[in-house]
């Protein structure tokens, strides 16, 4: 039987898993796994035709079980996500081999478990992306959440507790999806996409409502949408370095992939739009939009209060997820493109940021923002990578984050949704504030005495970071490249397609051409530099030669402002951090505890039998008379 490219990809990925399992303990295991990921990327590129047209590649393996047929196939949507997954896996495993591996082993980490967990994650994600019908989608979904659990729980201690919390959420999500699939199966008779497409039109609104709620909440949990977002930050932050880079970049976007596949492609935005919430004027699409917008704002402002760099980034991961959903839910040409492009962009700079923070942890041993400072003189390249990353995360012009946020804003503008537009902008501003706190507390300010001999991260960690930074800038300069893939994805899932150019988006109501904007920006920088360097020569002074109101600065008194960074802002909004969602989660767990207490009491008391039997007799008597 001839091997379709998809078969090759899945076999390659399975092979990587096997290699990691068998040779995981060897010294060169890391490099071997990275090369294999490279191979997977090559097979993916071989299927590049998918990215530019809506052809479909079928896998030759399909099963016939219990009356259900399972099949796997790749289309533009899955190709787009697969490309991001394999690329981020390649870069994060490249980052992990070499010196990071050695120090991870020294600190008692299990490198074999790490590599095999990563390979397992990639393999399961490819299976999920390639799912041909709802049942294989669910199988892939469960596998991915369990593989994620493995990767998160391997660091032990705090990580295990965070992973436990994750798995409870993931199981709840999985069961919601399972219920949804059952309902669909009953309504449509079969789980194939084509059958569901036809069946969706006759579905009654209550049935459609049930499905949207079940699928929405199930996939929303994985994406970290608002009511279910509490698990994501600690879980991603506690995973070992490159693992968090991989998870942060792509793992929670699987939820978005599933929402795109089910809610957008199968149910179609127009149907969702028609679902009215009784006696309120908003419908399901607005509800999703508002959830997305609150998911942008609340996690971003929580991130601002974090004192640990990894937690700050993880909270931002949740926030940016809101943008993607917002873009997709607005569902006009630009919004869809914005949301999908944001998936790609976010993957690049989130991975770069996590790697930069891991490099800092690798060298200084801590990621606590109050124990770092002034590292720019000792780790300049990591500073550059972090700077490029935060400009992308904040969505400022030279980097790619700006393009996708611009598209989302333009779509909100065209659709005329002022409050959503305002909320999205508040999210961006919050990101800028907390992102500056990140780079200021780590790289700027006074260098500590103990960090004076710190060296730059080793080249094995630095090269993938620089590659990512380059990708961020290039896709910022030429957004046309990813926009091409995004356009073909839009075609596949039925959203209106944007007409993109290499530089950006062309439209009658105001277009964007990044090549011109960045060209002018760098011209401006050139002119500024000329003005600046035409004046006299400047002399570099020591960090203690600083104005302190006439006071003689000395190394033993730390002259740095980093704790409670936005004191003014916190005076006003400090009171709003009551952790209402944390309270929500606690109330659920205490309810479960209470019920279990009651049930256990039921079984323990001796005279329960008579009480129970009397009820049984009563039932019989009642039936007879």
């Amino acid at each position: 039987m001839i091997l379709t490219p998809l078969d090759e990809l899945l076999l390659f990925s399975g092979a990587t898993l096997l290699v990691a399992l068998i040779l995981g303990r060897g010294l060169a295991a890391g490099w071997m796994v990275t090369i294999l990921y490279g191979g997977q990327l090559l097979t993916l590129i071989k299927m590049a035709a998918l990215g530019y047209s809506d052809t479909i590649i079928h896998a030759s393996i399909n099963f016939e079980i219990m009356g259900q047929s399972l099949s796997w196939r790749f289309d533009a949507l899955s190709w787009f996500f697969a490309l991001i997954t394999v690329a981020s896996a390649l870069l994060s495993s490249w980052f992990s081999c070499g010196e990071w591996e050695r120090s991870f082993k020294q600190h008692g980490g299990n490198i074999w478990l790490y590599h095999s967990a990563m390979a397992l994650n990639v393999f399961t994600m490819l299976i999920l992306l390639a799912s041909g019908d709802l049942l294989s989608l669910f199988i892939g979904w469960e596998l991915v959440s369990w593989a994620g659990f493995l990767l998160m729980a391997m660091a032990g201690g705090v990580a295990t507790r965070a992973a436990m919390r994750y798995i409870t959420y993931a199981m709840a999500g999985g069961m919601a999806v399972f219920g949804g699939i059952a309902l669909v199966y009953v309504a449509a008779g079969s789980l194939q996409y084509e059958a569901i497409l036809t069946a969706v039109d006759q579905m009654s609104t209550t049935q459609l409502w049930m499905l949207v709620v079940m699928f929405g909440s199930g996939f929303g949990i994985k994406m970290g949408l608002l009511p279910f977002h509490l698990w994501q930050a600690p879980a991603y932050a506690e995973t070992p370095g490159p693992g968090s880079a991989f998870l942060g970049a792509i793992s929670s976007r699987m939820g978005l992939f599933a929402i795109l596949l089910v809610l957008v492609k199968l149910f179609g935005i127009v149907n969702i739009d028609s679902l009215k919430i009784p006696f309120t004027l908003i419908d399901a699409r607005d509800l999703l939009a508002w959830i997305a917008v609150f998911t942008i704002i609340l996690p971003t402002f929580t991130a601002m209060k974090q004192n640990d760099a990894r937690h700050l980034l993880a909270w931002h991961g949740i926030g940016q997820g809101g943008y993607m959903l917002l873009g997709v839910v607005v569902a006009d040409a630009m919004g869809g493109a914005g949301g999908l492009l944001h998936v790609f962009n976010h993957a690049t700079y989130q991975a770069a940021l996590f790697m930069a923070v891991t490099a800092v942890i690798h060298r200084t041993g801590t990621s606590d923002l109050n124990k770092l400072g002034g590292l720019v003189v000792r780790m300049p390249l990591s500073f550059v990578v972090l700077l490029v990353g935060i400009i992308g995360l904040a969505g400022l012009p030279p980097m790619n984050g700006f393009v996708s946020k611009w598209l989302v804003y333009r779509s909100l503008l065209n659709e005329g949704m002022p409050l959503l537009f305002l909320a999205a902008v508040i999210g961006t501003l919050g990101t800028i504030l907390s992102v500056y706190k990140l780079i200021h507390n780590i790289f700027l300010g006074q260098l500590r005495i103990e960090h004076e001999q710190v060296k730059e991260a080793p080249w094995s960690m630095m090269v993938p970071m620089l590659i990512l930074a380059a990708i961020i800038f290039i896709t910022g300069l030429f957004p046309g490249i990813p926009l091409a893939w995004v356009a073909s994805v839009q075609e596949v899932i039925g959203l209106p397609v944007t007409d993109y150019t290499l530089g950006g988006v062309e439209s009658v109501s105001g277009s964007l051409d990044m090549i011109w904007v960045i060209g002018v920006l760098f011209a401006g920088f050139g002119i500024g530099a000329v003005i600046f360097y035409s004046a006299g020569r400047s002399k570099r002074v020591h960090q203690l030669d600083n104005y302190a109101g006439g006071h003689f600065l000395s190394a033993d008194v730390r002259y740095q402002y980093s704790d409670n960074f936005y004191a003014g802002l916190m005076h006003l909004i400090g009171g709003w951090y009551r952790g209402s969602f944390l309270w929500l989660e606690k109330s659920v767990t205490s309810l479960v505890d209470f019920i279990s207490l009651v049930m256990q009491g039921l079984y323990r008391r001796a005279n329960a039998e008579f009480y129970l039997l009397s009820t049984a007799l009563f039932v019989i008597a009642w039936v007879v008379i």
Partner: protein
Amino acid sequence: MNEHLMLTIALPLLGAFLLPIIMRSSLAMGVWIGPAILGYGCWILGNLWLHGNGQPFSIAIGGFAPPIGINLYVDAMALLFAFATQLLGLIFWPFRLDQDTPKRQALMLLLVASSTGLALSGDLFNLYVFYELVAVSTFGLIAASSSGAAYVATIRYLILSGIGSVLTLFGIALIYAQTGTLNLAHLAQLAPDQLNNDLGLAAFLAILIGIGVKAELFPVNTWVPEVYATAASRLSAFLAGLVSKLAMLVILRLLLLIFHQPEATQVILILGILGVISGEFAAWRAKDMRRMLAFSSIGQLGVIFIAVALPDERGVLAVLALSLHHMLIKSGLFMLADHWGGSLDRLRGLAATSPLAGGLFVLFALSLVGMPPLPGFWAKFTLITELAGQTDPLYMIGLLVFLLATVIEASYLFRVAAKMYQTKPTENVRINAPDSGGLSLTTASLFGAGLIAVTVMVSPLGEALQAVAAQAQDVDLYIQTVLQQPLGERQ
């Protein structure tokens, strides 16, 4: 070939009574009699299964024609369960040698014989007799493990099953008064007109509660945690794994053949849902491994009862799939519990000492929770698609409760798994996980291998179960085989 069938019940009974005598004379010879009998029983049932023409047949015991005499009805489902009884009896054979080994082995033979009878019997009163035998032998076996708590548990179980059997007798009496016959096939013929009223329903409920004691039905399963926690875990594995399934099989037969009133299925559904809720939530707080497994088995049985409440043929398929899967998993887990024993927090960092046990636990937990490639998922899938298909809102509640139960199950099972894989054991707790009992670990890995084998051959097994379910569902096939068949052959 089918007359040998009687031997599968007769031989263990004979062995049960002869064993103490043989044991007293020569211990060595006595030790091997039990396993030999059971082995022979498995062999009979095995080749009956292979060579049988797939058609059910009925054997009249003692030559009397069915309406008067007692007959054994053997269709694919009954054969499956009988074979399972013999096999598990062999696996969980109490090999330990101490002063009351003969008593324990004799009771075990008795238990296996009566269980096989329960599976095969076609007569209502015969069922009641075998049910009593099972109850008596379980008392003896639990009491045999001679610990204080065991006695207390036995007494509680004694009271409950006593009341249960009284109720069953009351039900049977009602039926007999109404129809004048006790043969299932004959009853099936008469049921539509005579038992279709309130009296029939009352009779069914009485029998349901009576047999429910053994099937861990909600109101009457308070004995389960005590018994399973205190009895020898090999015995509790056998009880939880198999005997409760047989009792549920009897209820299923009654439901399929005789009682078709909708209220009956509703009552079962409600009790099933309550069983799931109470079982799963109680397991959330369990401190001791075996008690947690006991509660979890109550929950799983509740799920199976929900499946029983499903009217059509796929419902039966769900019941079969779930019960077989639960049998495999629960016995494996009990074996692991025997291998570890004791409270949950002594398991900290245990995966480091015995990785195989840790791996098996995770495998069983994953399958119980319904991780896709494993069979647990397919069993759940059939149940859920069936539940979703019903229009009755009560089934919807059943679906929600079942989904919620899986989430809770996942959280408490994996809390234990996480504790086991805690790489950095806290300093003061010395890892004193008990030395791995060789025997129980091998049996557990046997079940693990069985599970993996089922995973691989899921589709063929699926079809086979479908055929079994179709056959069981077919009422008039049952009547036709039992009644029109000429008087049983001589010899």
